[in-house]
């Protein structure tokens, strides 16, 4: 038994191992796109730690933390060039990979049919990204009427309430 076999979960499939490595690398790669500008050391350390934790346990909340950290960093720095498109793809891929892995324990082989289904879904989910990117680059928010922001805020609030109600556990 090699040293690697002792560290890894017994029965971990090759496909599962590859996906976990990819899952650990994707948020880090999304942050690394900022180079040569170097993100703050704390942000980098947190993203790396959360990504590793996420790769070990794809169900872990560390995944959401990694996504929010990377997304937040890019939003705060207000970068709207081509790199943001790549970041969006990388973050969505990480989320889909984690979803695939979360269908069962580490010993569950990755089902090619399920992987194909989620690839198609990911491509479908990416459709609004270029539209949003063009809107962000081409539209000036200052020119929008004030009532528009009020309506958007109300819709957003309604969405928050609806989502929280849907996600609440059922009363038995």
């Amino acid at each position, binding site marked *: 038994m090699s040293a690697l076999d002792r560290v890894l979960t*017994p*029965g971990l499939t090759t496909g599962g191992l590859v996906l976990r490595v990819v899952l650990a690398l994707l948020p880090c790669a999304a942050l690394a796109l900022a180079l040569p500008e170097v993100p703050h050391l704390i942000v980098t350390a947190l993203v790396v730690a959360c990504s590793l934790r996420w790769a070990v346990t*794809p*169900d*872990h*909340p560390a*995944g*959401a933390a990694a*996504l*929010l950290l990377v*997304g*937040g960093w*890019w*939003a705060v720095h*207000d*970068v*709207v060039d081509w790199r*943001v498109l790549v*970041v*969006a793809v990388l*973050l*969505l891929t990480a*989320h889909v990979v*984690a*979803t695939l892995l*979360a*269908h*069962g*324990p580490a*010993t*569950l082989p990755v*089902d090619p*049919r*399920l992987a194909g*289904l989620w690839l198609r*879904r*990911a491509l*479908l*989910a*990416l*459709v*609004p*990204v270029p*539209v*949003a*990117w063009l809107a*962000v680059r081409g539209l000036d*928010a200052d020119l929008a009427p004030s009532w528009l*922001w009020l309506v*958007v*805020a109300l819709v*957003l609030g309604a*969405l*928050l309430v609806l*989502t929280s109600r*849907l*996600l609440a*556990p*059922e009363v*038995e």
Partner: protein
Amino acid sequence: MSTWRPTPSLVRACLFALGGLAGGVVGGLDVLVMLAAPFVVLAAMGLAGRPRRVPTVSTRIDHHRLHEGQGTTSRLVVDDLTGIEHATRVAGPAPHVATRPTYGAAGSLVDAGLPVVEFSPRRWGRRAIGAERVGLTSSWAGWQWGPVDMPEHGLSVLPQTAPYDSRAEVPQPDGLVGRHRSRRIGSGTEFEGIRHFAAGDRLKRITWPVSLRTGELHVITTRAEQDAGVWLVVDGLRDIGRSGGIDGAASTLDLTVRAAAALAEHHVRTGDRVGLLVVAADPSRVPLGSGPRHLQRIQAVLARIRTEGRSVAPERLDLGAGAGSVVHVLSPMLFTPLVTATASLQRSGASVVVIDTWGERDAGSDRLALPSLAARMQKIERDDRLERLAALGCPVVPWHGPGTLDTVLQQLARRARVPKVRAR
């Protein structure tokens, strides 16, 4: 009962989607809106895919009685698959049971059929399989049901029918009709001799070539064919060695049980009546009988044998076996009382054969280690017991599968024709 709960994937998508939208609108971070856009799609589809009904899930296995090495399939039964996209099941490990997939985890899209797990018991005995956890996922991985523990299923694993055949006749057949050559002359097909025709002989027995050559009528005489009573005495007092199932090393009890199963099957197929006596903490006895159902009964009793430390060897083997019966004592002969009981049986007139099921044991690399010393001492005592049994005229043969008993049974058959004094 479990209900549908949001998956961590859905919670993550909702968090990022709403956080991104809120950050964009409230904080003016429009890049965040762009990054959150695909997650809005995933969150919306996941939320919309909530199943309406709580499913009822159970598992069932195709067989409840198998021979070791055979396999059965555990199937998942879900009453309503509406809204369910994926099913996952993970079977727990069970001793001496192999599973496929190897680690017991199986999952598939419901469209492709519910996942199945295959079990194959590798050792005889009573096995519990199918203790597993089942989880269901809705479309777009939005909601999950379970994982829920499923109850296990009992499986009776009969000993493997090791290949066994014997060409030797049973020494003293005593039944009515069977395949063994009787000592008495009768209406069989086995040639015995030619003699002069006598009143009452059947005409079809006349041998015309001899009659024409000698000028006097001669008839062929044949032996009757009878069945025999065969008793199997199985020593279940101790189990020495580690059992690796049918794929690995065999313990003494493995050898004993498999040899008994092979002998029982051989004799039942030959048409003999077979009885079984299990010497163990929980002794059991199957009277003489024949036929496939009787063989199944013997195999089931063999599969229930369990060793316990408190087991004590009997002083006497009470078989009720007549002088015509053959008794096979299958044992590693580790207990002096069992040796004494076997010798008593031999003296009472039964044809007793001791089948040594010690097998080949590794003495260990370190000859001075305590386990190695203990094993050597045990071997010396055992050899001494077996030599004393052999000196009493009770043949001892190590079990090695087909033909194990041929030479011994032929010798016993010759001995049975010699007049002898019987001790009572």
